């Protein structure tokens, strides 16, 4: 019932292309049939009752998208996870109390598993009592453990009932981020064509834009840097593009200027959204400007101590494993420092230890804990260093117990981290220190200059 408004739109466009996933086309008719196939499969064959908490692992493919919609229709609590998160899967399944895991592999085949976990968190029960679907997304946590943010999914879906223009859209952002799901639901609800791919390299993205005449590319500043560095845009015809949007991290004015001069026919739009609040409507001052208006229907925005606070109908209920992030009057404290100029805001970034690497976020503690397990390590400090490509890179200053060749140690540390951490959390710069400096209060300080 929660996706009726979507399905009735699909019915009207049965023969139109809904999805192009890894270069295979599917119509809205195919999509409806596949959703109902999985709806039946879930209850009749896999015995997954409505209201179950289900971790869905995959990327934007025909079957994953169909399963996502079928689970929504069955009022399940969905925990989407990108295929690349495999190293964290067990931990994330435990934190989110996932009762079932559905993994969709590279050939788009689904595998169903029962975990044996019983989900009984108060937020989950609240959503079950409302007979609504739920959505759990992860955001990085100060202690190193990811925070499980719980949405009543019906609240997030509400805004898609308002019809808007749908462009041919490349679903570039990730499956386990609200940005990626927001793009998918926007395009589907307006009967637009969604193009998705597992290969997000600049050359493949440019090829898809040329081949499928893509009009809208939601992206990130890191990807746009890579697009410029690779010069892939010089090898393809990208004239179909109308809008490139970017969010998830701060954009360098140099990159934005270069983009505007290389793509004079494209409008650049900054977006702003958080896992905890959903995506806000924004309006940039002009194409070359990083100042923007924030808000839209259902959002209330204010600034306290230069930190942005947001109240929204689609705010999360809370975190399953961390204290409430809301003020007493219901505003979410974003942690993002902003400058204001009349009704315009400029996002300066996080006022905390959190490190943002190309839109993926992590706190130093998680990485420090892993490095300290490594042989011959006496202590480690992890911090972010500004980098024009990915916004920041992870640096680790390490003190060793006995001398070791620097290059060998760097390789050994990275190899060890590869077995324990997702790729973006592995330090890029590793420095061996004679001694780690301690500040007056014996709190460790990093050595960055």
């Amino acid at each position, binding site marked *: 019932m929660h996706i009726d408004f979507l399905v009735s739109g699909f019915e009207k466009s049965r023969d139109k292309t809904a999805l192009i996933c890894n270069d295979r086309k599917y119509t809205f008719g195919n999509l409806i049939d596949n959703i109902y196939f999985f709806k039946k499969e879930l209850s009749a064959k896999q015995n997954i009752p409505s209201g179950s908490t289900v971790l869905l692992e995959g990327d934007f493919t025909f079957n994953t998208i169909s399963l996502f919609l079928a689970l929504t229709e069955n009022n399940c609590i969905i925990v989407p996870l990108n295929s690349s998160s495999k190293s964290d899967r067990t931990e994330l399944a435990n934190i989110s109390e996932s009762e079932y895991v559905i993994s969709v592999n590279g050939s788009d085949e689904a595998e169903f598993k029962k975990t044996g976990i019983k989900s009984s968190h108060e937020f989950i029960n609240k959503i079950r009592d409302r007979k609504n679907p739920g959505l759990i997304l992860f955001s990085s946590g100060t202690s190193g453990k990811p925070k499980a943010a719980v949405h009543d999914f019906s609240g997030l879906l509400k805004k898609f009932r308002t019809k808007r223009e749908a462009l041919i859209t490349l679903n570039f952002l990730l499956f386990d981020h609200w940005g990626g799901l927001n793009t998918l639901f926007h395009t589907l609800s307006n009967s637009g064509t969604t193009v998705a791919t597992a290969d997000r*390299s600049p*050359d493949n993205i440019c090829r898809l834009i040329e081949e499928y005449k893509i009009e809208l590319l939601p992206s990130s500043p*890191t*990807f746009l*840097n*890579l697009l*410029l*560095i*690779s*010069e*892939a845009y010089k*090898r393809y015809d990208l004239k179909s593009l109308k809008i490139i949007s970017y969010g998830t991290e701060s954009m*360098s004015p*140099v*990159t934005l*200027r*270069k983009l505007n001069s290389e793509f004079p026919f494209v409008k650049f739009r900054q977006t702003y959204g958080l896992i905890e609040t959903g995506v806000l409507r924004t309006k940039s001052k002009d194409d070359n400007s990083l100042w923007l208006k924030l808000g839209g229907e259902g959002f209330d925005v204010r600034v306290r101590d230069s930190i942005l606070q947001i109240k929204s109908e689609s705010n999360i209920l809370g975190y399953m494993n961390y204290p409430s992030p809301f003020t007493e009057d219901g505003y979410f404290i974003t942690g993002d420092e902003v400058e204001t100029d009349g009704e315009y805001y400029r996002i300066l970034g996080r006022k905390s230890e959190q490190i943002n*690497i*190309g839109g993926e976020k992590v706190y130093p503690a998680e990485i420090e804990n892993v490095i300290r397990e490594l042989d011959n390590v006496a202590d480690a400090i992890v911090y972010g260093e500004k*980098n*024009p*490509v*990915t916004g920041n*890179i992870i640096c680790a200053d390490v003190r060793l117990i006995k001398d070791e060749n*620097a*290059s060998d140690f*760097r*390789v050994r540390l*990275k*190899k060890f981290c*590869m077995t324990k951490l997702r*790729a*973006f959390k*592995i330090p*890029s*710069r590793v420095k061996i220190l004679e001694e780690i400096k301690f500040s007056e209060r014996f709190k460790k300080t990093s050595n960055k200059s």
Partner: protein
Amino acid sequence: MITSEKINETIFNALDEINQLLPDENKIEKKEDTVLYGAYSRLDSLGLVNLIVTVEQRVQDELGRSIDLTDEKALSRKNSPFLTVKTLSDYIASLLNNE
């Protein structure tokens, strides 16, 4: 004046270090015309950043000079310095020899 042979050798040593972390099918060949971050590169964004940082560290260790390969100057150039081993080597030479 630091020769282009010396710079190439430093880049190749950095590639040796990076290759130890890459699966066999993605290893980067030690040749002047090897594509680093250009058409159909096998590196992703983190791979590119790791390559850049490792080359900076090797230049520091082996040539005793500190360089910044990703300042605004590098990114706003008309042609990207990171397309191939050769373009990167030429760019490092221009930084080291203050052209």
